[in-house]
């Protein structure tokens, strides 16, 4: 933080940013660690403070990737009614829907709970590893666009809540045996939220292209 903002201003012109929600032009300011810059007109989030180190984010993403694998490999819950036992994992549930002629729904569940979260995690690892080593990831622009379009469709936290509601419904007439994947999903939900909060898109661009050409400054 500069003690004299006026001095800092005369030394370098700061990049101009436009609010994505109301299009207001503003000068980018330095934000203290953990802080968020908000639009002064509509209150929309402009950007978050850049991280000094990428390690915490990378650690969260790698841990989430391991748990994601566990959550997909093991059964979520088992059901026991009069000695008959039935277990399911996530992909098994998708298959069951597919076989019940509910193919669009099976596809939607597959996309939002398996494919999109997997792509999201893979993309974040692909971006963070080279950046940590001080290199620009190959195909960065394409990857960032993929990340942007994939993000809203990963819905594991909603799925987690869905498991809870389903279990409560089932406990009324059967014995429910929680599986390893259930706990993995619970922790994964928290890790993904932490990773998403820690992953900073603007930071990635600034590290990859410290002084982009064509940028408007004022």
């Amino acid at each position, binding site marked *: 933080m500069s003690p004299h903002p006026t001095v800092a201003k005369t030394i370098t012109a700061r*990049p101009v*940013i*436009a609010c*994505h*929600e*109301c*299009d*207001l*032009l503003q000068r980018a300011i330095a934000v203290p660690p953990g802080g968020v810059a908000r639009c002064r*007109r*509509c*209150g*929309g989030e402009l*950007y978050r403070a850049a991280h000094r180190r990428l390690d915490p984010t990378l650690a969260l993403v790698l841990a989430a990737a391991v748990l994601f694998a566990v959550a997909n490999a093991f059964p979520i*819950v088992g*059901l026991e*009614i*009069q000695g*008959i036992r*039935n*277990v*399911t994992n996530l992909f*098994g*549930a*998708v*298959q*069951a*829907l597919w076989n*019940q002629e*509910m193919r*669009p*729904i099976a596809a*939607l*569940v597959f996309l939002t*709970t398996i494919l999109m979260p997997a792509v999201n995690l893979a993309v974040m690892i692909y971006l963070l590893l080279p950046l940590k080593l001080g290199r620009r990831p190959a195909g*960065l*622009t394409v990857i*960032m*666009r993929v990340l*942007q379009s994939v993000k*809203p469709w990963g*819905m594991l936290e*909603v*799925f987690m*809540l*869905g498991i809870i*509601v*389903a279990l*409560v*419904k*089932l406990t009324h*007439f*059967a014995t429910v045996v929680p599986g390893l994947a259930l706990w993995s999903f619970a922790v994964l939900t928290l890790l993904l939220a932490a990773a998403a909060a820690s992953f900073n898109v*603007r930071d990635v*661009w600034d590290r990859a292209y410290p002084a*982009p*050409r*064509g*940028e*408007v400054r004022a």
Partner: protein
Amino acid sequence: MNATPATAAACGLLSCHVCGLVSRAPGTGGGTAHCPRCSARLHFRKPNGTSRAWALLIAAYIMYIPANLLPIMETSSLFGSENDTIMSGVIFLWSSGSWDLAGLVFIASILVPLMKLIALTLLLVSVQCRARWLPVQRTRLYRLVEQVGRWSMLDIYVVTILAALVQIGSLATITAGPAALAFGAVVVLTMFAAMQFDPRLIWDPFHQESQHHD
């Protein structure tokens, strides 16, 4: 407040929706502008956003009817079969004592989709009338619609798990009903509609001088 604050569009500047870089719009030579940093296609406003949002929203309204009237879950057991709509599922949870989960499912499956449809309609109408009332609140409403919409998927996931688990031959079988398809469509359509809506249009009536609507 002094003069009207400047927007990027009013100053002939384009902000990139992928990397956030603000760059000068190329001359009026036609052709599409590309971001100098990430080469994404640039627009002053999302192209045809309002008409696309309307189309998706109307489709969502249509699907909302079967989503609520048809059964979302079909249960057959030794004691006969039963069809559950979204609402009767909520009532079942409520009457079996899980009033907290009943409230949760009610909010996620009934309230959120309905409020989302109404909110998007309100936003689209107000933008088309170039309304000037409560821009901050309308922007906040848009933000809420974008963030909350995904939670409507809850019922789809509940049905998915129940349909996969409760397959115990003649004892009890649960299958997903036709409303699941309609409901899934409502969620996806409203999410796309919210993505197509450009919140910057809420603020454009305050900048009469901006003619850019690319």
